[in-house]
């Protein structure tokens, strides 16, 4: 009896309940309360991820030996010092003191030295989508829930924002050009097909946009996409690939609605991936997306690799044994009825379920 094959899933759903566990990488401070409504760019929790310290040599500052410093220290671990506050001293006729050169908290003091943790801008964990805080996760974050459309992508530049969506591509594979962008789009989220020219990203950054949703992107633009100040995410892959019809249809029918883009990178270990959420009114609680599936007949799938990369279709049959492909490779296969009506045999490893 053959063992069924687990299927990777990409969600493209017009109405679903979306629950997201949002966690700080290390323990910090949760700044929302249970039951609070949040927007996509609202901070849920914060923590200092880029600490900056100052190590002060008190003995040298006071001109005395390290052994003699301890009894002159005027602060304790945990004290918050303002710039100019005395840390140690005064000593001698000159009444020498060591003052805090910057505002900071004392984290260590002793043996003639003091270590100050300076105040730095904390890392802010954003909600990533609009919704309700349904659960607080002690010191780490919260669970957010909302109802709406969910479209998952494959690549994101790590930023989060939201705004009204303008559709600039009439077809899912249309190339977005500089001439399509103008000042009326400032603060908007743009839906385009493909971006191949770096000037499109630069112009979008000059406006600036609040987000860019694409089907695909030229991989040479990765450094620029990582530099711009708005979220960039694409749904299908690198190279000139058409956005899947399902994603394009769902997104383009929601033109002029507020959409949120969480362009966080795809992390298979945590399950986080770039996604677009369009909050929609719902009666009751729509069903949550399924997260684990086996491949089976009649499922809608997307092809992730050539030939037919980016196309969607339905599984006609799961073939027994191994099949031989034009590359000479032998692999488990499925027959797919593509959206253009063609029936093709493809490796199961090159498919993902769309639902």
């Amino acid at each position, binding site marked *: 009896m053959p063992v069924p094959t687990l299927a990777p899933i990409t969600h493209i759903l017009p109405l679903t309940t979306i629950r997201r566990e949002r966690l700080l990488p290390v323990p910090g401070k949760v700044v929302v309360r249970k039951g609070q409504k949040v927007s996509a760019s609202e901070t849920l929790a914060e923590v200092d991820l880029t*600490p900056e310290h100052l*190590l002060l040599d008190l003995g040298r500052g006071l001109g005395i030996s390290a052994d003699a410093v301890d009894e002159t220290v005027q602060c304790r671990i945990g004290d918050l010092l303002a710039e100019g506050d005395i840390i140690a001293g005064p000593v001698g006729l000159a009444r020498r003191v060591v003052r805090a050169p910057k505002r900071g908290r004392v984290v260590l003091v002793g043996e003639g030295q003091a270590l100050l943790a300076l105040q730095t801008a904390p890392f802010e964990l954003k909600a990533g989508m609009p919704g309700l805080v349904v659960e607080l996760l002690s010191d780490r974050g919260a669970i957010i829930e909302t109802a709406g459309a969910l479209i998952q992508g494959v690549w994101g530049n790590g930023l989060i924002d939201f705004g009204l969506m303008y559709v600039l591509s009439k077809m899912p594979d249309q190339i977005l050009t500089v001439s399509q962008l103008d000042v009326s789009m400032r603060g908007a989220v743009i839906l385009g097909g493909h971006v191949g020219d770096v000037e499109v990203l630069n112009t979008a950054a000059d406006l600036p946009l609040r987000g860019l949703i694409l089907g695909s992107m030229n*991989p040479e633009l990765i450094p620029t996409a990582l530099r711009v100040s708005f979220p960039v995410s694409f749904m299908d892959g690198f190279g000139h690939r058409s956005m899947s019809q399902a994603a394009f249809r769902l997104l383009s029918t929601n033109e002029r609605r507020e959409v949120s883009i969480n362009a966080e990178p795809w992390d298979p270990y945590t399950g986080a991936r770039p996604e677009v959420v369009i909050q929609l009114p719902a009666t009751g609680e729509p069903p949550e997306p399924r997260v684990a599936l086996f491949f089976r007949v009649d499922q809608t799938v997307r092809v992730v690799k050539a030939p037919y*990369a980016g196309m969607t279709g339905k599984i006609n049959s799961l073939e027994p044994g191994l099949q031989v492909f034009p590359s000479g490779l032998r692999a488990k296969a499925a027959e797919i009825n593509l959206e253009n009506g063609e029936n093709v045999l493809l490796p199961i490893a090159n498919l993902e379920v769309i639902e």
Partner: protein
Amino acid sequence: MTTSLIDADSLLVIDIGTAATRAILFDVVDGRYRFLAMGTGPTTDIAPYRDIREGVRQALDQLQLITSRVFVGSDENLIIPSAPDGTGVDTCAVVMSAGAPLKMVVVGLLEDVSLESARRLADTAYSGVVESISLNDRRRTEARIDLIMRLRPDMILVAGGTEGGASQSVLKLLEPVGLACYLMPEKQRPEVLYIGNEALRDEVQVSLKNIVNLHFAPNARPSLEMERLGSAQVELGNIYRRVRARQIQGVEELDKWAGGRLMPSAAAFGRIVQFLSRSYASSKGVLGVDIGAAATTIAAAFEDELRLGVYPQYGLGRGLANLLKYIPLGQITRWVLTDTSESYVREYIQNKALYPLSVPASAEDMAIEQALARQLLQASLKHSVAGFPAGLKSSFDGLLPWFKIIVASGSVLTKAPSLGQALLMLLDGLQPVGTATLGLDTNHLAPALGAAAGINPVLTVQVLDSGTFQYLGSVISPVGSSPVGTTVLRVKLQREGGNDSTLEVKQGSLEVLPLQSGKTATLHLQPLHRYDVGMGGPGRGGRLTVHGGSLGVIIDARGRPLQPPSDLGRRRELYRKWLWTLGG
């Protein structure tokens, strides 16, 4: 050997790879250990499962189906040892390469001494060195503290000070390490492995033991001239297990199944390569290469000396997203045999990183995948060979030293459409010199046998004897300098029972002399123009016994280092010819 002479214990090895989890059963058949069957499942360390036990269970279910034996009890635990009714197994081993590479910070005194050794040690685990701190580092103490805290490494490797050498400067280097760890939340603190001056152990203990999980291994650099990584590698394996148990659900339980012997797959792979090296005691070494999704692994053993390199940046999986930071695109496209644009190759690499389990279905994609395999081997070997001890380095600049046996693993090789394609990838990627026998680990059993070698060496010997590896053949690679078309080697193959073959080998050619698997023959080599075939020096020939393989005896006189023609048409024509010579 009869069963009475061996402990007839069945062994289950669970191999948790990046993509697949395998449950591999070895047991005694007709008085000898055999590889019996393998069940596979997906590796489920990723979302939504985030627990490797799901994939292990699927692999075991398949193994139970294949063997009609029961391994898992009603309590969902492995039945160990086996019960009188035949259920369960007697011993279990676990090897693992799944999970993101460990983030490692290396600390050492001198850039090209202790720090270099620390980096080499880091290279033996699935890790990426995210920062180095040395004595010459001009950053202030607080900057080093901040750096460590921002990076949040899984592990810090501290080296420095030869035996009887520096002490105060080593302790000074430890200051920011201790302070940074003290300031980090307890559960986020890295493991620290100290491999420096052994005289400082007590002081290091006093400074760090209450702050971090502190581990010690013998000084990796006891003198400037000597490097000693063996024990540190073992300790690194133990730390790997601890970190993975914290990071991935189910690792702790599987480690219990294995009696606390869960080991990194690369270490197990290294062990089997060393095992082969000892078995075939020879002045030449044994080389193992494994192109995996998590990393490319290079293991070179010269009897008791093992050099292991694990390169996550050269894996054929998610790590490909950053590959072009390490390898220029042109180094990859020079091996592509189809009319493919550079931009498509770039897209292919990035899309493969997004979908690491996808496979090349078109001829063009297969050509890119095979080009990647060639270049990943070259890049990994370059790192590895640089770390070989001086006495083991090749006398030919930038080339491999002499190896007697080369074993290759990784599905891009073992699942290549033909053996000829697999061999050409290996010859191009490794560019061996002299005479070597090439084998393919077609069932990906090498790490399992390496794990077994630590528990039941008899099993390893007997399973290896049973033809675990598919031997492609003996490869003769003469090295020298002559224009293409010059005769550089005369070869005579004397098969058992007659039917001799002779051949004049020309520079630039690839030739095959058929010799069936299981047959042996005497090969006479007479190099010309001072070509070296590894028989004692330039121009020196002789005779040797060769064993048949799937492809026979191969003479690769295409030149070292091999430069594929830059013209696509010429390149394609040559490869078509060479592939035809190798049987397609």
